[in-house]
């Protein structure tokens, strides 16, 4: 699957209260949640996002509360994928379970440059190189992120086999259906 879209850049430690404030946790409707996504820290966020766009953030994305409404709100407002230096544990499992695409692009992951750039200098730390508004093309199956605006390519580590199975099944509920049938 290829995701191509504009970047909305955020910093470190974006918590799930930032992603969706608790006062909106009285519904499971993804569209409704999406309308209030990031409201406390970026009030105009949901109106700025077009369907298929991408969040790029620093470390510890999705920390705090376990609310699965957070990844659902991101989906609801049109975010197609999240790229961050690291993800908080519960957000990580929620994103796997509900099928919100995400990639970890940390400081030490191998970085592959385009030919032209390889000769100039080695790019380290993809997240810091990506700017708000850049255009990315993400190849989810191979974990490759192309920054079309900066003409760079970043590699991410593949998901472990077990998680890959849940992702391929289309989320946890489909996965257990498959496993329990087999």
């Amino acid at each position: 699957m290829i995701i191509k879209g504009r970047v909305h850049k955020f910093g470190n430690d974006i918590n799930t209260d930032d992603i969706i404030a608790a006062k909106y946790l009285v519904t499971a409707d993804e569209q409704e949640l999406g309308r209030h996504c990031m409201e406390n820290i970026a009030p105009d966020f949901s109106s700025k996002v077009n369907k298929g766009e991408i969040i790029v953030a620093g470390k510890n994305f999705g920390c705090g509360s376990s609310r699965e409404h957070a990844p659902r709100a991101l989906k609801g407002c049109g975010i197609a994928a999240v790229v961050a230096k690291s993800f908080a544990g519960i957000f990580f499992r929620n994103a796997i379970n509900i099928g919100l695409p995400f990639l970890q692009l940390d400081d030490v992951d191998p970085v592959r440059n385009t030919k032209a750039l390889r000769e100039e200098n080695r790019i380290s730390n993809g997240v810091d190189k990506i700017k708000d508004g850049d255009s990315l093309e993400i190849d989810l199956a191979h974990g490759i992120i192309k920054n079309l605006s900066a003409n760079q390519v970043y590699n991410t580590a593949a998901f472990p086999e077990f998680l890959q199975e849940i992702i391929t099944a289309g989320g946890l509920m489909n996965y257990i259906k498959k496993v329990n049938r087999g």
Partner: protein
Amino acid sequence: MPYTITEKILLAHTNKKDIKPGDFIEARIDLALGNDITAPLAIEEFRKSGAKKVFNNKEIVLVPDHFAPAKDLKSANQCKILADFAKEQRIKNYFEVGCMGIEHALLPEKGLVSPGDLVIGADSHTCTYGALGSFATGVGSTDLARAFIDGKCWFKVPDAIKFIYKGTLNKWVGGKDLILYTIGSIGVDGALGKVMEFSGPVIEGLNMDDRFTMSNMAIEAGGVTGIIEPDEKTYEYLHATRHRLHATGKKAWSLQREAWGRLKSDTDVTYERVYEYDVSKLEPLVACPHLPSNVKPAEKLGSIVLDQVVIGSCTNGRISDLRIAAKILKGRMIKPGLRLIVIPATQKIYLEAVKEGLAEIFVKAGGVFSTPTCGPCLGGHMGILTEGERCLATTNRNFIGRMGHPKSEVYLASPAVAVASAITGRITHPDLL
């Protein structure tokens, strides 16, 4: 092969012969918890899957505590989804308003969690029960839905970080200060994806309420759980709560105690990291906006003027928290114009506070004494902040807008600092009263 206490518990809940950090496992769970925010979503997923019956009606706990007693129509609907599901599935441990309390104070109090148990909860502060020597961790609603169906959950076996606390604690310094100090030292992702194992003579000296406070906030450093090896204090606590095994007779109890005694990390185990703290010089601490790791000594924050003080939550709403606060407040008044909101975490704590005269102290001093609820901690109800307001709370998070308006501020501290600050109207070290 040497194992940590966490690995021992996880291994006992799989069919595997061996596990190591990084392995993905499917484990049987002993208890699955949901609340009025997370369970409705789980119930929806459960129904969508076509499942008709939960795997076990005794190992599921449903607590309407976040927006309950229902704060508005939509919350009332969420609570009703829980109540209806509990009735339909004959869920034994459903706690209606009047029986309920804040889930993470309630479950241990009801004797529902044992050392060695594997507990998941669709609430991040499920890690609280690590204080009983269980592996307890927060998950999402879909995880909970899956557990409803087959009683299982997937895990990545976590590495462990050992924290050793040495020295003698100063007056007014307790579990809250120790955990704030720890989070301040390692940062909000200092234990990301790892188990925090709390140990050392200082932990051994803490009462269970203080241990719960520490384990509760492990998630604030990214910890999967905050685990403490069970000891005599744990057993005493379990005995006093009329734990279900205690009720089955003396023999079962002593056999169980023997088994719990083996729940220790092997001495030759490899930790990812070991932190050793001498906490003898520690003074009461406050986490300033907008991260729990932004920790400063209370005495350096005397210029911070407050509009509200909240004493309560799954972190510090237990009876010993209320006792400390009432002891300091007795015979004094809170600062005029400031709002003091005291929220006992459970009905049992509420009654104890009434019987011991604590409720009267809070009310006479000008505070309010509320029915149990998570309420203001997550900006739900019972004390929402408007633009520009500042609150010092004994809760666990001070993120932007956590208690209401995005331009309000939350400071986190112990009940002692909270009540001292309510008296003066500024952040105050209790010694300065």
